[in-house]
């Protein structure tokens, strides 16, 4: 068959078929429209202000590399006036981060951005290798995820930066929407679709400018712009993605490519259907997106963008707890009386201690954020998750070391 021509310039050969609308585009027009759309997301939600210092959470992987490249391009093209910094976390996994950190270092040179690397050892006194030595491989992704979340905030604070952008893409958001439906966690569902997280009282806010960008297009953008990125599975999460929400998303994409953005749309709409939710005004009208409280939001899973990719353990724990609740209360309980808060609390304590016990009622309208009594970082509990996990680890250390 004759090669298709680009739907925009009508001259060059089409190389890309866009999942969101089937448009066939050439390389140049694709790169332009990809950047224009991220620019639109940034301006319509008022993500940045001129002169703002912004840290890009950089893992060396495709998402954060593309984010850094696009932000540099847009910052120059549209005169955002941003002061961009790469912020990298070293979990302390030998053979995993070494190569990806090298990639980030090259990116720093390529994009002429300063780089700050923060290690788990200096933040927590533990490298992930030591954590695994202590608790084994099972469940270690939880530690890694909780530690990383704070690590970015702490690193940003060290640099005097109040805004961290991450490479979360549309696939990540869609996956979070489906996972929270399976978890039955409506408050978190309604937060997870928000482009800005972290509330006014928190010291560091986070945002995801690639929220509407397909993972597929991110990879194609990196490929066609010949970006230097690194990809590997974390050696501590070798579990494949079979049966996971991630795998479900990719199957849906194959059947109907628009499905990923359609899930994001559904998630945004459902956020308005959660009881007690304030009627949200259209964010594109306001100058600045209203940040949503999302401390310890947990949509950053084990690896930088791989939430839910190994849900086996989590699903099992969710199921077990839900079953116990059913036995306690009988299945025929009124929906409104469901003590889901308790369910959630127990589930998390057992398996994934992400966001422990929020009253559903108050959580829907925005959580009350305080600070951790131990480390002083924002937390809705007296003791934040990282400190709770550390306490357990430190208790175990002597036993292990004997």
């Amino acid at each position, binding site marked *: 068959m004759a090669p298709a021509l680009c739907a925009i310039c009508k001259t060059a050969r*089409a190389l890309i078929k866009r999942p969101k609308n089937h448009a066939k585009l050439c390389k140049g027009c694709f790169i332009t429209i990809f950047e224009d759309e991220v620019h639109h997301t940034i301006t319509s939600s008022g993500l940045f202000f001129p002169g703002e210092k912004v840290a890009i959470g950089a893992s060396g*992987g495709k998402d954060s590399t593309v984010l850094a490249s696009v932000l540099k391009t847009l910052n120059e093209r549209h005169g955002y006036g941003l002061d961009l910094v790469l912020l990298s976390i070293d979990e302390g996994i030998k053979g995993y981060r070494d190569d990806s950190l090298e990639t980030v270092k090259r990116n720093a040179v390529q994009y002429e951005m300063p780089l700050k690397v923060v290690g788990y050892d200096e933040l927590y006194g533990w490298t992930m290798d030591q954590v695994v030595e202590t608790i084994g491989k099972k469940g270690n992704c939880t530690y890694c995820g909780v530690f990383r979340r704070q690590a970015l905030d702490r690193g940003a604070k060290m640099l005097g930066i109040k805004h961290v952008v991450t490479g979360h893409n549309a*696939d990540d958001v869609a996956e979070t929407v489906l996972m929270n439906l399976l978890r039955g966690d409506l408050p978190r569902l309604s937060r997870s679709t928000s482009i800005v997280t972290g509330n006014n009282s928190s010291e560091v806010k986070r945002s995801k400018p690639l929220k509407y960008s397909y*993972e*597929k297009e991110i990879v194609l953008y990196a490929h066609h712009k010949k970006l230097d990125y690194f*990809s590997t599975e974390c050696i501590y999460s070798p579990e494949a993605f079979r049966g996971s929400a991630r795998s479900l998303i990719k199957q849906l994409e194959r059947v109907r490519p628009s499905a990923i953005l359609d899930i994001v749309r559904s998630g945004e709409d459902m956020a308005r259907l959660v009881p007690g939710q304030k009627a949200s005004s259209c964010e594109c009208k306001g100058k600045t997106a209203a940040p949503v409280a999302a401390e310890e939001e947990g949509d950053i899973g084990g690896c930088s963008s791989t939430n839910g990719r190994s849900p086996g353990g989590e699903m099992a724990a969710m199921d077990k707890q839900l079953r116990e609740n059913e036995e306690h209360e009988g299945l025929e309980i009124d929906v409104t009386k469901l003590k889901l808060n308790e369910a959630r609390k127990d589930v998390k304590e057992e398996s994934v201690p992400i966001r422990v016990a929020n009253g559903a009622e108050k959580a829907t309208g925005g959580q009350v954020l305080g600070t951790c009594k131990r480390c002083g970082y924002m937390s809705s509990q007296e003791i934040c998750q990282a400190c709770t996990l550390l306490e357990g680890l430190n208790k175990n250390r002597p036993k292990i070391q004997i």
Partner: protein
Amino acid sequence: MADVATGPQIPISVDFSGGLEMLFSNQKRHALSIAANDRDGKPLTIAFLIDHLCKNLMKDPRSDLFVLDGHIRPGILVLINDADWELEGEEEYEIKPGDNILFVSTLHGG
């Protein structure tokens, strides 16, 4: 390579990236010479190539990270001479001498 079919061979290059190279001896580019027709004399398609790669080139036992239920795993992009294979007929595309086929995973950690 243990190809049963004989007859004319065509040279192609196959690339793996986005983490897939791990399944193929950690090597990104493979220059291959492959039979132009399959056993039934039909032209070489991408579907046949995928099967061929699984049987002959993959050194890793985890073939389900590449192929699932008989098709390329959802989340792996296939580019034929830099064009999305969706523009080229996907599995039915008939491979020509000198073609470059790139398999790139979107599934690996970012």
